């Protein structure tokens, strides 16, 4: 499973495809202030990224891939 929803945190793993964006958006709508763990994530489809930015999601763990992480940080730290 690329996505695992916990109580106040969602774990995104491996490659999160475009199909997950809908579910992610729905979950985040009901969990304001939720956090996202990207430590196991290797790629995120931009649709998911848009959802994370729009939801103002806090990131509890960044991906291990430094350059991937650099891209994400510019979008998600400011939020």
């Amino acid at each position, binding site marked *: 499973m690329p996505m695992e929803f916990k109580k106040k945190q969602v774990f995104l793993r491996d490659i999160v495809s*475009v199909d997950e*964006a*809908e579910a*992610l*958006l729905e979950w*985040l*709508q009901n969990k304001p202030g939720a956090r996202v763990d990207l430590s196991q994530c290797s*790629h*995120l*489809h*931009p*649709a*998911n*990224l*848009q*959802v994370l*930015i*729009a*939801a103002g999601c806090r990131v509890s763990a960044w991906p291990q891939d430094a*350059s*991937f992480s*650099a*891209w*994400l940080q*510019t*979008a998600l730290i*400011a939020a």
Partner: protein
Amino acid sequence: MNPLLEQFLSESRDVLQGIGEELMRLEKAPDDKALLVSLFRMVHTLKGNSGLFDFPEMTRVLHAGEDLMDAVRNGRIAFTQELADQLLDAMDFVGLLCDEIENTGRIPALRAADSARLSAALRALIALHALPGAQENCEAVFDAAANALSPTNYPAQLPLGELPEAVLREAYLCAQQGPLHWLAYQPIAECFFQGDDPFYAARQTPATLWVHVGAREAFGPLPTLDAYRCVLEFRALSTAPLEELLELYRYVADQVQIVAVPAHCLVLPQGDPNGGPVYDDFVQDALQHLEAGRFNELRQAAQTMLHLSSPALWLSSALRWLLLLLEQEPQNLPALRLLIESLRSLQAPDWSALESAQALANTAAAGPTEAASDAGESALSGAVAPDQSALKSLLAAQRQILLFEDQPQWLSGRLKAVAAVLLHCCSARGALDAPAQIEAALALSLAQRSSAPLLAWLDARDDLPVAAAPALAPALAVPSTAPAAVAPATKSAAAASVASRNDAPEAAPADEAPAFGRRAEDAAASSGPKSLKVDQAKIDRLMNLIGEMVVSKNALPYLAQRAEEQFGVRELAREIKAQYAVINRIAEEMQDAIMQVRMLPVSFVFQRFPRLVRDISRKLGKEVELVLEGEDTEADKNIIESLADPLIHIVRNSLDHGLETPEVRRAAGKPATGKLTIRAVQEGDRVLIDIIDDGRGIDPQIIKRKAYEKGLIDEATLERISDRDAIHLVFAAGFSTAEVVSDLSGRGVGMDVVRTAVEKVNGSLALESVVGQGTRLRISLPLSMAVTQVMIVEADGQTFGVPMDHVVETVRVPRADIRAIKQSQTMVLRGSIVPLKALNTLLTLAPAARANADDEMAVLVVKIGGDALGLIVDEFHETAEIIQKPLTGVLTGLSAYSGSALMGDGSVLMVLNVKELV
């Protein structure tokens, strides 16, 4: 290069040519609907074809062209000269791409930008010229067009100030070493639905110094969020070469902006501008140090100042930059000066002015740096325009837009777009006072909902496109006069000179315009397309001429002979013979070359068989596997064409009579699927085509009986005819085994037609069949039919030609070895009996064949339908290449001769038709 691509390129050239012609015709008759439709179809075809290959640059332009033509076709846009120009330009570009593909097999990555620009220009035309009545949603298109028309290609306008200072410093250092590019990628909103992953693409950007991803617009509350509408924007600074970046983004070239960033554009101090005129003293001192070249003092002063200031201040940031610049490029005085002066205003230095100044300095050597640094004052005339003609056409287009008299709902968007273009034009030319004026005019225009104020401004600055030319000319000629030329005082004089020079700048852009057509011509001059389409008549003429040359060259040996025998000059005879050898070689090569031109692969005929076999076998309820072999075997075009009909007959026959239905086959213990093989091979100077089936074979008994029933043979023949010969009866006219005439066969003409057609091109047929196992029909055809090789023989003092195809060998047989079996004469040749016939007898010439001194007879062994036969002649002569002309007129009936030919010595040679003769 694969054949498909080759064909595509050759077809594309034709279509491009066609589009060009149609456009010209349309210019004369812009209302011709049929022309419009045909033009649209051509562009459409070309686009569709290009989509087969991996050429997004080409497809993109053609797609835009197609949309444009579609709009014209549907009457949404009027056809104009300008539209034709744009379209022609695009087609030239496509032609250029074709050349590049042909030469290198691919499109260089650099073309992506051209492609994006051209397609944007084409799309802009759609928006610009939209006729009233079809205007919905035009505003969005127009805005997009405006964006495309005025890309921020100027590095000074990039939002580099948003980057942290540390990144900028690193980037600055990198830019000193090599290229540095700013990349902004704005995927289109629907890109997710097209299966794109722009983030993934962006992550592939090589050698990034800084990356950023953000949203182009603010996201609304979550419940209204459309996750699948892409509003992201990716930005990066990369040290990768431009080609690499273009290659990576070639599929989305229209959504990507890549700008080369000069090092000093990164020098953007940041921080709290708190402070004030206290720095004036420092600026004064620093400038003095700089002018005097006291770099150490300047550095110390800056360091001291830095220690005294809070690091978060704008001033501190600027000082840090100053120190870095001093370290990196202390020789760049203008840059240092500009940076120091910026401390006064606490505004980031305007590097664009510096850049223009440098450009001018480069152009006009040393003198005008002073003038250029004052360029702010003399506005637009001082700086060097990046591209005069481009600027000129841009401004002309803006003027045209402003002159539109309609009041569409998107007027404000249009005005803004025009203002944006003007702003960019001015900043590109270093006109520092212009932006404020343009903005004022724009505000006025918007308020009045009229384009008049902007137009007035543009008219006031009428000197924009042309003024630089006269200003620059003296600057180049006599550098010392440059400041005078650009000084405001002489502005009226300059304007006057503009008027007088009006013609010159008009003509100049035509030479300077970066037209793809021109480049395409240059390319064509060097390489050009590799294949020609030539009318067959021209080739035939060439062929005839070469044939005649072959014949007339044959006169030389006669000449040599005469020189020796009649005039007794052996030297001359030898020389003539030597010359003959040379001419002979060249003529043979020429002949060979022209043959090659006429060669076609048999696949030309073969390619229709898969479909034919499929259809017929379906109709007959048979299962057939067709095997084609040797499709690339080549033969003369005429031969190949003459083959088409006979082959179809043969294949039909094989399918109809030869191959059985699956049930019958299974019962006979054969696989249910029958096999039909068509094979072409070249053997010497002949092409052999075998049509082989594994069907029921031909039963000679049935053939005999049928032939007898049809009255083709009499009873006596029926009795003695061999099975082998019986099979060949199928070629007789009127023969048919089928009881009922179907649409496939049974009319009794098929195989007769085959035989006639094959023999017409000097081919021969051989049929072999084993009952129950299959049939093999072999067609043997000459590679070419223009020049025939004949062996010249003598009988009763006359010479005759015998086609070399028939000649097996020449032997001398002692008269004693010739035996008579009943009426016939025979001889034994290598253990087999060969029947002999005297040519004189066959031609009803009275004298008997002569023997030579050793009492040996000259026997020409020929092959007729697979059997050897000896022709007794008087003497053998050489072989010759002749052009055989068929007998005409009253001679047509002489079946003993297949034709005549003119020999080199002027005599006529009769060519024997050996088959008919015997």
